[in-house]
């Protein structure tokens, strides 16, 4: 939510671009290092269940998070650590969720990527692919109903999720209701192990837009500058009342589906192709080339971030785990109507 900061400081275009790029890079690096830490904790047996990384998707992801403002709505996908942080999530909340701390936003009830704070427009995903999009629609629908204008909602999905009925119904709904939805499709070439030709038969996923009457842009997901521009413009169009926006990014998942996955099915040609570039490296090289950041600053930044992450992990590891005897075991809000937890 850097926009808020930037809007306040009238600077030259170049200087503004520098600020955005530097901020974005910082979130990307933070996300990458945080992901690396989760992977390490997973291998050390400190994390239960799965770990899902955003390696190779940070440029796109951060562009979404950074283009949104406070008050906007965000439904990330499992690889959106960068976007989440840019949208305002703290490292602490991410770590607390992965480690199941009772102080985290999910209180140990849900874990890993299934986190969010609905009251802050940050929607916690259910696992069912495509299912969050219509929920974003609902928030936006309610905003319009309440005559709140100027806010938008972004939902991120992988190319695999485009095959779900939920994706279709929700995008169509957004089109019919002309909601300010930005739907970001991260085509990372695989859905778990499944290559795109088993997933869809269109030439580009952008070809889907016309069928929903929504605007569409495609973008090179390995290029931070391009992502910031394309996503930023889509967000701006939606905010101006331009209706739903589809953004299709092409990139490659530079890791396994989850950390349990050896990822040995990726077509080696893809690693060599432009899609296989590491967006974090590309961004770093660009920043250095532009002299927007000195090499020494990158090193310092990295150290700062590592310290921040290590501190968060250390802190969370001392936090109380959820206690089944304290846990209420209530699934509805109307306290006295809960039932069924006596042993019967």
């Amino acid at each position, binding site marked *: 939510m850097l926009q808020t900061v930037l809007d306040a400081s009238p600077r030259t275009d170049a200087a503004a671009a520098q600020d955005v790029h530097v901020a974005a890079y910082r979130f990307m690096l933070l996300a990458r290092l945080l992901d690396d830490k989760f992977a390490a904790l997973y291998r050390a047996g400190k994390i239960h269940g799965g770990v899902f990384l955003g390696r190779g998707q940070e440029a796109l992801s951060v562009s979404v998070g950074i283009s949104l403002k406070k008050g906007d709505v965000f439904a990330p996908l499992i690889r959106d650590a960068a976007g989440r942080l840019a949208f305002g999530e703290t490292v602490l909340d991410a770590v607390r969720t992965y480690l199941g701390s009772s102080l985290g936003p999910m209180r140990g009830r849900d874990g890993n990527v299934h986190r969010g704070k609905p009251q802050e427009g940050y929607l916690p995903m259910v696992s069912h692919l495509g*299912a969050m999009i219509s929920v974003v629609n609902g928030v936006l629908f309610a905003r319009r109903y309440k005559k709140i204008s100027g806010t938008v909602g972004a939902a991120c999905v992988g190319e695999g999720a485009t095959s779900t009925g939920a994706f279709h*119904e929700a995008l169509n709904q957004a089109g019919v209701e002309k909601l300010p939805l930005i739907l970001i499709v991260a085509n990372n070439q695989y859905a778990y192990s499944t290559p795109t030709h088993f997933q869809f038969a269109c030439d580009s996923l952008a070809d889907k837009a016309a069928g929903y009457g929504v605007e569409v842009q495609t973008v090179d997901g390995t290029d931070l500058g391009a992502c910031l521009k394309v996503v930023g413009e889509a967000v701006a169009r939606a905010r101006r009342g331009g209706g739903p926006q589809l953004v299709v990014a092409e990139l490659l998942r530079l890791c396994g589906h989850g950390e349990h996955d050896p990822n040995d099915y990726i077509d080696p040609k893809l690693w060599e192709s432009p899609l296989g570039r590491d967006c974090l490296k590309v961004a770093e090289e660009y920043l250095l080339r532009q002299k927007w950041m000195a090499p020494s600053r990158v090193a310092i930044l990295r150290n700062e971030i590592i310290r921040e992450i290590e501190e968060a992990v250390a802190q969370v590891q001392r936090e109380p785990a959820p206690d089944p005897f304290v846990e209420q075991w209530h699934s509805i809000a109307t306290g006295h109507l809960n039932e069924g937890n006596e042993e019967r």
Partner: protein
Amino acid sequence: MSLTYLEAIREAQAHALRDDPRVFIYGQDVGAFGGAFKATKNLAQEYPGRVLDSPISEDAMVGLAVGAAIEGMRPIIEMQFADFSTVGFNQIVNQAATLFWRTNVPCPITVRLPFGGTSGSGPFHSQCIEAIYAHYPGLIVLTPATVEDAYAMLLEAVALDDPVIFCEHKFLYYHLKADELPSEALPVGKARISREGRDLTVVTYSAMVHEALEAARELSGEGWEIEVVDLRSVKPLDTDTVVASVARTGKLLCVGESWPWGGVTAEIISRVTGEGFGLLDAPPQRLNAKDTPVPYHPNLWAAHRPTARSVASAARNLLRS
């Protein structure tokens, strides 16, 4: 003034719209047309912008409602028939039903399911699927049997902070009439003794309450006094009222229009035998629909679901045992 069960549902929605600006209605054909059953007749005209036609997208309909609820609204979703809620199933049981538990943010949505059998409606416009929803944690499942309850419970459903599956029985829509709307009502979660009796307790809900009452009248002519308990809400279930009734009668027959495997009748029997075993002086019995889809032809349909006659016959067997 006299109004039907269906009109009561319309009135409840009108009142909810009138009294609470957070309420809106979303569903196929609910707008200008007033709904497939006219349950929202004139509401779009009376409350412009608040009663909205949706595309044929049950999944997205429920998803939108959840999002709106997060934003503080109180949406009412009309499914055209309960049977079609199966395509919105995932959003109901995994999105709406888990939201509060996961995040502490309540999810006050009401999903109206016109449900239950009517003659000639066949396997896809007759289903009773209340048990499917009641099995999942996080949902309240209501099954009003009277005009007054249809009205009062729908108003309460909208006011509750939780997702409510509101099962309104199509068989009762037109036939059932009341003279006026209630000003007071039993709260959600409380069962009602619809008829008092000393010889046997019939526990049931929705349209089957009326079959049970008719059976009770018939048996009364034979000297038996049947107590009929109308559950009103199948989740939560008012076990106390049921057990207290069985304490008086010693005999339990559970009647449901749904399929025999699992469901409300099994749940009631498990609770009563678990908590009030010693009160029973005969094996508790169930009467459900048959274990096939709901048939189209009236002859088959009448034999598929429990009726006053089959309730009376099951009751007689139990009374003589």
